[in-house]
C-alpha cells in the first residue's frame, strides 16, 4: 500500500471530480507515541453496561478498561493477584476479612471504600435489579433471601456482608469455598461509585469507574471513545492515549478495515479470512489459548442415554471424532484438540492436565466402532447434533464431526446435524430439556479456576448442567475439593473428580478454543488475556 500513494492521489482527483469523496484511506489521525489513540473493533453490548449484568466479551472489554476490582487476573498467566485488596484473609475457608488499599479513587474523585464494594455487591445480587450475573454472589450468605429461586425477595441486602470501617469488610459464605478469593477478579465484583445508585440513568449513558481509562464519548450502538485517566492510582497505567471502540456489524468489514489501515486492532478474525491472515498480517496475527472449551452434551433426562451401555456408546463416539483433522482443516489451528475438561489457560498448577482423558479422547476407528456396537448402538439408531445456525459457523464443524462418526460406523446416516434458527431459540430448547439427541455446548470460564470448569456444568442440578447428569461420586469429590484449604490439594481433588468424567463421559470434550486478533503496524505490544479480551492498557502506539 505504501507504494500506491501516487495512484491513490490520482484516483482521488478523479473521484473528487465526481463528488467530494473522503480521500485518505490508510493511517489514522490518532497521533503517535504515548498519547496515540488506538482504534479497535467492537460489537454492540447485549445488555446494559452494568458490571453484574455484563456476561459477554463486548461489554466485558469496556468493563475491563473502566474498572478494577479487589483481585486482577494476570493478563499473561491468568493468576489471581491482589489489586485493590491489601489482603483477603480467612481461617476457616468460610469467613473472610477483606482489607483494601487506601489510595484508590473513582475517576470522579470519589474514594473507593469498603462501602463501595458492599453496595455494588448488594445491587448485583438483588433480584429486583435483573442482573444476569447475580449468581456470582450465590456463595455469600443470605443470597437465597435477596435472590430466591421463586417468589419475592425477603431481604434487600446480603446478610453475609458487613462493613467494618472505611477500608475493611467481612464476608461470610454459606459454605466452605477455599478458592473464593480467586473468583473476585470477575467484573461482577468491582466497586461502584455512589452516582451509580443515585443517578442510574446518567451513569448508564456515561459510566464512571476506577480503571485506567475514562469514557470521553459514548454513542450507544455505534462507538465509544475511551481516554487514559492520568490520575489512575494503579500500577497498570495505560501505555497509550486512549482507545476508540467502533461497532462493526460484520467482522469481515472490520478485517477489511484493518488491512486498509483504517483500524488498529481486530480481536475477532473471521473464519473465512483465516487462510489469508498469515499473508495479510504476518506476525501481527495473534492466536493464543482462551478459557473456552467446546463439547458435545447429551440428554440424561432421556432414559436411553442414562444407562451403563450408553457410557460405552459415548466413549465410542468420542473416539470416533478425528479432532486433529477437524481443528486443522476447519479451524486452521485456532482450536486445539481437547484431552481433558478444562482449559490450557489454567496452567499445570491451576489444574489443566493434558491427556487426562486418555485414549477415550483419541481417534481410534476400530475401537470406536467396537465400543458403540458393544453398547448396543446409538440410542434411536441415529445421533442428531443440534446447534444454532445463526452465528459462529457451527454448521461446518458439526457436519465434519458427523462425517467422522459416519465414516467410523460405515453408515451415512448414523449422525446428522440439527440446525436451530437462532441462538436464543437454541439455548431455550437446551435449557428447558427439549432436545432428545446431542447438542453442541461451550463453556467460557468466569474465572481461571478448575472449579469453574467442573462444578457449574456437571454437579447435580448445577445451573448449567443442561443434560441433567448426576453422579454421587463426582459431587462428593467436588464438595471435598471446595473444603480443602490447601490450594494444591484442592486442585488434585478437582482432578480426581474430573477422572469420574473420563469413566462416565457425560459430555465429550472436543477442543479448546483460542482467541485470535490482528493489529496494524501502527501499534505494538498487543496481546490477548485468558478471556480473549485484548490487554488494551499495554498497547503502545509507535
Amino acid at each position: 500500500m505504501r507504494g500506491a500513494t501516487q495512484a491513490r492521489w490520482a484516483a482521488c482527483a478523479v473521484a473528487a471530480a465526481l463528488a467530494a469523496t473522503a480521500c485518505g484511506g490508510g493511517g489514522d489521525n490518532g497521533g503517535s507515541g504515548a498519547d496515540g489513540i488506538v482504534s479497535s473493533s467492537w460489537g454492540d453490548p447485549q445488555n446494559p453496561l452494568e458490571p453484574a449484568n455484563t456476561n459477554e466479551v463486548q461489554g466485558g472489554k469496556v468493563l475491563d478498561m473502566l474498572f478494577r476490582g479487589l483481585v486482577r487476573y494476570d493478563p499473561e498467566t491468568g493468576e489471581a493477584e491482589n489489586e485493590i485488596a491489601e489482603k483477603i484473609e480467612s481461617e476457616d475457608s468460610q469467613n473472610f476479612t477483606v482489607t483494601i488499599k487506601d489510595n484508590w479513587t473513582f475517576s470522579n474523585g470519589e474514594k473507593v471504600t469498603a462501602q463501595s464494594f458492599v453496595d455494588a455487591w448488594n445491587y448485583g445480587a438483588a433480584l429486583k435489579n435483573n442482573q444476569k450475573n447475580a449468581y456470582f454472589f450465590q456463595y455469600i450468605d443470605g443470597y437465597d433471601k435477596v435472590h430466591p429461586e421463586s417468589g419475592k425477595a425477603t431481604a434487600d441486602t446480603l446478610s453475609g456482608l458487613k462493613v467494618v470501617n472505611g477500608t475493611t469488610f467481612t464476608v461470610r459464605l454459606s459454605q466452605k469455598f477455599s478458592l473464593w478469593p480467586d473468583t473476585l477478579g470477575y467484573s461482577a465484583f468491582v466497586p461502584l461509585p455512589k452516582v451509580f445508585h443515585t443517578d442510574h440513568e446518567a451513569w448508564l449513558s456515561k459510566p464512571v469507574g476506577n480503571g485506567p481509562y475514562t469514557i470521553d464519548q459514548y454513542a450507544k450502538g455505534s462507538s465509544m471513545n475511551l481516554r487514559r485517566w492520568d490520575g489512575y492510582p494503579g500500577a497498570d497505567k495505560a501505555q497509550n492515549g486512549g482507545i476508540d471502540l467502533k461497532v462493526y456489524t460484520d467482522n469481515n468489514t472490520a478485517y477489511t478495515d484493518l488491512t486498509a489501515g483504517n483500524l488498529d486492532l481486530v480481536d475477532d478474525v473471521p473464519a473465512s479470512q483465516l487462510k489469508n491472515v498469515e499473508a495479510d498480517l504476518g506476525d501481527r496475527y495473534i492466536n493464543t489459548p482462551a478459557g473456552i472449551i467446546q463439547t458435545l452434551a447429551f440428554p440424561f433426562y432421556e432414559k436411553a442415554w442414562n444407562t451403563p451401555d450408553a457410557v460405552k456408546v459415548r466413549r465410542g463416539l468420542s473416539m470416533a471424532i478425528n479432532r486433529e483433522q477437524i481443528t486443522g482443516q476447519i479451524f486452521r489451528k485456532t482450536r486445539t484438540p481437547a484431552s481433558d475438561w478444562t482449559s490450557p489457560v489454567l496452567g499445570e498448577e491451576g489444574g489443566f492436565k493434558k491427556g487426562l482423558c486418555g485414549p477415550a479422547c483419541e481417534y481410534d476407528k476400530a475401537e470406536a466402532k467396537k465400543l458403540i456396537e458393544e453398547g448396543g448402538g446409538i440410542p434411536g439408531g441415529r445421533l442428531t447434533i443440534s446447534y444454532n445456525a445463526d452465528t459462529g459457523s457451527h454448521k461446518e464443524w458439526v457436519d465434519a464431526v458427523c462425517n467422522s462418526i459416519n465414516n467410523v460406523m460405515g453408515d451415512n446416516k448414523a449422525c446428522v446435524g440439527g440446525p436451530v434458527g437462532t441462538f436464543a431459540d437454541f439455548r431455550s430448547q437446551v435449557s428447558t430439556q427439549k432436545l432428545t439427541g446431542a447438542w453442541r455446548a461451550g463453556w467460557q470460564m468466569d474465572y481461571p479456576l478448575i472449579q469453574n470448569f467442573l462444578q457449574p456444568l456437571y454437579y447435580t442440578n448445577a445451573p448449567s448442567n443442561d443434560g441433567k447428569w448426576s453422579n454421587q461420586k463426582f459431587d462428593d469429590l467436588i464438595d471435598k475439593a471446595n473444603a480443602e484449604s490447601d490450594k494444591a490439594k484442592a486442585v488434585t481433588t478437582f482432578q480426581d473428580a474430573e477422572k469420574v468424567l473420563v469413566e462416565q463421559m457425560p459430555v465429550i470434550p472436543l477442543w479448546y478454543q483460542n482467541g485470535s486478533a490482528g493489529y496494524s503496524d501502527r501499534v505494538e505490544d498487543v496481546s490477548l488475556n485468558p478471556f480473549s479480551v485484548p490487554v488494551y492498557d499495554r498497547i503502545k502506539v509507535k
Partner: protein
Amino acid sequence: MGRYVIRRLLQMIPVFLGTTLLIFLMVNVMGDPVAGLCGDRRCDPATAARLRTEFGLDKPVWQQYLTYMGNIFTGDFGTAFNGQKVTELMATAFPITIRLTIVAIVFEIVIGISLGVVTGLRRGRPVDTVVLILTLVVIAVPTFVTGLLLQLLLGVEWGVIKPSVSSEAPVDELIVPGLVLASVSLAYVTRLTRTSIAENARADYVRTAVAKGLPRRRVVVRHLLRNSLIPVVTFIGTDVGALMGGAIVTERIFNIHGVGYQLYQGILRQNSQTVVGFVTVLVLVFLAANLIVDLLYAVLDPRIRYA
C-alpha cells in the same frame, strides 16, 4: 382528489394492522428470547422470570400484540434488551438510512433516466447495445458481490475511500454504498425508461410537436420524457421502501449503522420490540411512497384524473 386521498388513507389501516400482526407472530414463533441473553449458560430462573414479566413475554400473544399496538399509538415503541428505547434506536438509524436511500435514488434518477433516454433515442446503435449489456451484467451480479468488490478495489487496493462508513455516516462517505445499493434498480430504471421512450417516440403527440417545429430538446424533455416517466416513477416510488428495508446487505458490508443493522441485530437477538417497531415504520414508508406515486401520475399525465 381529496376524496381519493382519504379513501387511500383509510385503505392503509387494514394493511397496517395486517402487516404488524404478521410480523409480530413471526417474531414470536422463533421462541423464547430470554434464554439467549445469558450466553452458553442457563439464565437463573428467577431473573429470567422477571425479565419475561418486564418485556410482557409471560402473557398470551394476542394480549402482547394488543398492548404493543396500544403503546404504539402513544408513541411508545418499547425497549430493546440492551435497555435502549426503540424510539432512540430509530432516531439514530433512520436518518442514516434515509440519507443512504436519497443517495441511491439520486443515482437512479440521474444516471438511470439519462442512460434510458440516450439509449431509447438511439435504439440499435452501439451505445444502446453497450448499455444493454452493462445493465444485464449489473442485474445478474448480486449486490453483495458488487459491494465487496468495490470495497476491496476502492477501499483496500486503491485507497480511494474508507472501506467502512464512520458512525456519523456523512453523505460523502455514503456515495459508494449508495451506488452499490442503487445498482440493480438503476439498471431496471434504464431499461424501463428506454422501452418507454422508444414506444412513445412514435406517438402522435410527439410527431405533432416535431411538426410544430418545436426545438428537439423541448420535444424530448417536455413531451416525450414526461409521458414516458409513468412506469419509471412507479418503479422508483415502490423502490424507496425496498431500498430502505433492503439495505441490510449493503449496510452490513460497509458497516453502516442504519435500519438494516438494527433489524439484523433485532432478529438475531429475537428482540420483537425492535423488529416490529422498525418494520412498522417501514410499512408506513412503503404505503406513503405508493400513495405519492399514484398522485404523481396525475401530475405527469394530464389524461389521468382522480375523482
